[in-house]
């Protein structure tokens, strides 16, 4: 671990000021940052501690939305009554992420900013375009069974975005509020994370001098049922091999509205817009779910050890749609 400065900020302006002009990192839960600093993969010269900022509240926003402070811990968010009631998918995704100890520390904004689990990124020595642009991707021809994507990959990077929380947020729809030296702005959640393309070291829309202050969830869909299906080797404390966040609202036996997002298979939290479009107005039955699953995965690119993720993700989608439909109000049964 290199020597670094430590500044504890007490308000957002102070945090942004302390962060400015040097290789700095915001320290929230530290569950990614401290880990990678110990491994010498991240080398900030300054850590700006944002844990004392007044950003730890969950508050009702206009239009029925829910505004989550950047430093709200995963555990607090998962057990919030409004989240459990209106955003079941988010509560379930959070509770299937990491371990209880990590969830007690990890924050909302920190989870949005979670780094990849690619072993070649984390080892500090392998060629890695994310860590050292232009050196190549070791994962494409390497061991790539678990935390590697089949959607949104490029010849420069195939690492999965590992967050479960973000998959649920991608399905719900959300806005990321950020603050910079010149004020605040909003970034649509779906636009926040970037696919690797030719620049895998650029992971998100956040500018160097900006700080995430809130994530505001879209208003819940009326009478919808939702769930998060996470498939993995062991039952806890493992990143998704494939996961699906599904929100379904019915009109009788017909799907009125649906949201689908995938984890474990995409280089970013992966919203399945095409499959959603096909499902809207269709009967809520297994055949249509399976067809949506096929559509969602039709452009997937398998790598050496992760071809199984394509059928596995289809299973996650089908199961999630079934379970969300069963929970939806105002509908028939399938």
């Amino acid at each position, binding site marked *: 671990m290199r*020597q670094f400065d430590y500044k504890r900020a007490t308000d957002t302006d102070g945090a942004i000021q302390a962060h400015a002009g040097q290789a700095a990192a915001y320290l929230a839960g530290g569950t990614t940052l401290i880990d990678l600093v110990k491994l010498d993969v991240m080398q900030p010269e300054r850590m700006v501690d944002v844990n004392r900022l007044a950003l730890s509240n969950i508050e009702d926003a206009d239009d029925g939305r829910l505004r989550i402070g950047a430093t709200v811990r995963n555990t607090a968010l998962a057990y919030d009554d409004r989240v459990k009631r209106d955003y079941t998918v988010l509560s379930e995704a959070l509770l299937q992420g990491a371990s209880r100890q990590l969830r007690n520390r990890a924050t909302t904004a920190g989870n949005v900013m979670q780094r990849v689990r690619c*072993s070649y990124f984390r080892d500090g020595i*392998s060629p890695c375009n994310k860590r050292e642009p232009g050196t190549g991707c070791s994962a494409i021809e390497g*061991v790539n069974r*678990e935390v590697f994507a089949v959607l949104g990959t490029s010849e420069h990077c195939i690492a999965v975005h590992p967050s479960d929380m973000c998959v649920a947020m991608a399905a719900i729809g959300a806005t990321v509020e950020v603050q910079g030296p010149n004020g605040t702005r909003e970034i649509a959640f779906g636009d926040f994370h970037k696919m690797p393309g030719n620049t895998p070291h650029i992971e998100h829309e956040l500018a160097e001098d900006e700080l995430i202050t809130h994530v505001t969830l879209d208003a819940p869909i009326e009478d919808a049922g939702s769930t998060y299906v996470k498939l993995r*080797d*062991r*039952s*806890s404390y493992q990143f998704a091999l494939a996961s699906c966040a599904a929100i379904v609202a019915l009109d009788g036996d017909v799907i009125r509205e649906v949201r689908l997002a995938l984890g474990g298979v995409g280089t970013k939290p992966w919203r399945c817009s095409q499959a959603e479009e096909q499902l809207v107005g269709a009967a809520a039955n297994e055949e249509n779910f399976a067809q949506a699953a096929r559509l969602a995965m039709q452009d997937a690119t398998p790598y050496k050890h992760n071809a199984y993720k394509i059928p596995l993700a289809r299973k996650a989608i*089908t199961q999630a749609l079934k379970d969300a439909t069963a929970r939806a109000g105002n509908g028939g049964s399938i």
Partner: protein
Amino acid sequence: MSQTTIGSAVARVDGFDKLTGRARYAADFHPEGMAHAYGVYSTISRGRIVSIDTSIADGMPGVIEIFHHDNFPTLHRSPASFPEENMVDELRTPFEDDVVHYAGQFVALVVADTFEHARDAAYRVKASYDADSAAANLAQGLEGGVTEANRTERGDADSAFDSAEVKVDATYTTPVETHNPMEMHATTARWANGKLIVHESTQGVIFARNTLAKNFDLDPSQIEVHADYIGSGFGGKLWLWPHSLATCAVARELGRPVQFMLPRQNMFTTSGHRPETSQHIQLGAKTDGTLTSIIHDSINSTSSINTFVEACGGSTSSLYASDALRVSHATAQVARGTPTPMRAPGAGVGLFALESAMDELAIALDMDPLELRRQNFTATDPSDGKPWSSNHMLECYDRAAERFGWADRNPQVGSMRDGDWLIGQGVAACNWDAMRNPCDARVTLRPDGSATVHCATQDIGTGTYTIIAQTAADTLGIDIGRIHVAIGDSTFPHGQISGGSWATASILPAIVGACKAAADKLVEYAANDGAPMAGADTDDLLFEAGVVKNGRGDQATPADILEPQKLAHAIGDFHSDGSPEDGYAYGSFGVNFVEIGWNPNTAQLKVRRVVSSIDAGAIMNDATARSQVEGAIVMGLGAAMFEATEYDERTGRPVNNNYAEYLVPVNADMPELDVILLNHPDYHLNELGARGIGEIGLTGVQAAVANAVYHATGKRIRDLPITLDKIMDETA
């Protein structure tokens, strides 16, 4: 001997210290002036070091010295002799030359004033290499040649197999598994007046002391190795690894104490592992199920530093009756560190192959797999013709089958369901050696009525402290609260390693003997002039319930006896021998029944139930023994479904070298474990009837899972671990 606490579930006597943080582990010792060492590890898997550039690191804050092959003090190799108790698996000493044998080998050691400074500087040491190509896995290693280590033969196994009425011929493969005890390897070393004092996380303080004596050309009496508490080892801490030697060496060189902790990621490279295996099994049988030929030919990966043989067929030659048999072991070199024993070495992976093949044979015979095992039970050890000292395998089968409900199993594949879940039920035998090794102990009785037991063994978390206390309490007839157990110190009377499932059977007879010797000494003192029973014939005196009694109803406490004579204590020493040469074969036996569920909709594999029945002699403590078996089953389930160290084929580097990506079972994976301990004493082995129980529970678990998976899905998985992608029908 009175039996008051032995066998019962006495709470761990070290539990309070562990739960309150008073228990101190190797890295909890911080001698004054202690420096910290951190390693620099090879990034290539084979070749030579061209240069080590320390120019940046030398100037980093807190750096004291950076050692590498050009400036490292010369050490001597240990002969690696098990009989002489100086065993190592990595024969070369650290930094002895510029040759790199595996990725993750030490190439430099940074010593600094703090751990963080040492690590920081280590990241700035730049090594350059001249790399050679090397085998990165067993498949590649086989191309470089196979060396046979040994073979055992009975009859003509090949022709018996060729002429068999029913046959199974299959190859089973298992991956590298890495020991992941909670406590990482750690060494705290200091030198004082020519003596070396080491706090080491080790499963064998005597072996560690003797090995260091060889390395540093010292008399063993000049070395103290302490291991008060160990956060387990699973075999990875039986023998010393390079970091221990290096830490002691630089502590001497710098003239100050040095501490080293092996980071988790380097436990995947420089401190051993269970090797990769490929096991070819051929079983021949008559149509009635009688085995006519057993062939078990195995090959395991080893390093270029040492030949480690995984005794995959260790159980195979004894478990079933068959006139014809061949068991052979061979190795192939792979550019990894040397493998080392990992809990249930040999049978741990060997019974995955044999017991899977037995299931395949049962299916080929259209026979119940439990019945097949019963039919081939052998009341004598077929490897040497000796009768078993105590073998209750058939009772294990019966009791566990009844508890599990095996009679209700529908043998047809895929026939049992629970909602969306396909249910599979599988069975596999367990087996492990039973033996004892020589052990010394000393018991000291004091005027306050307390007793101290000294023995240079250690407790790796299994309950050794507790069963020693129980044994002493029962033998002396005094309360367990008055027994002080002193172990984990190489200066104590010669004790045994915590390994091989022989600690209990070896240590406790020495404790019993030393207790009796101490009691005899107190009796002798009681008859001295001026003592309470002066002039008595010691044959008429009896030590019982902590006091000396004569035939007239008088009794004298230790204080009554010792204080008037101004004696501090009464001491008893005892030496107990190794396994008896009495014409018996010794072993422990058991069976695991496993029920799994497979959800084809979600590709989820869950173990729903495990019922085990274990015949491991008399049980010394029902709680700690049960924990050993349950823990072993958990580890077996991990080996069945999760554990595999994955290496990059191009670099030879392990890629899943952390707790997040190297998967071991978590609580959420664990089913109800129902363990039946038969508790039949084996008095041929020792007077307590105790064998050992640390390893047997693991053996055969993987096969029981694989057999259950077949029963549910019709998929025969012969390559561990059994992950969802191997069971799924769809591949893309």
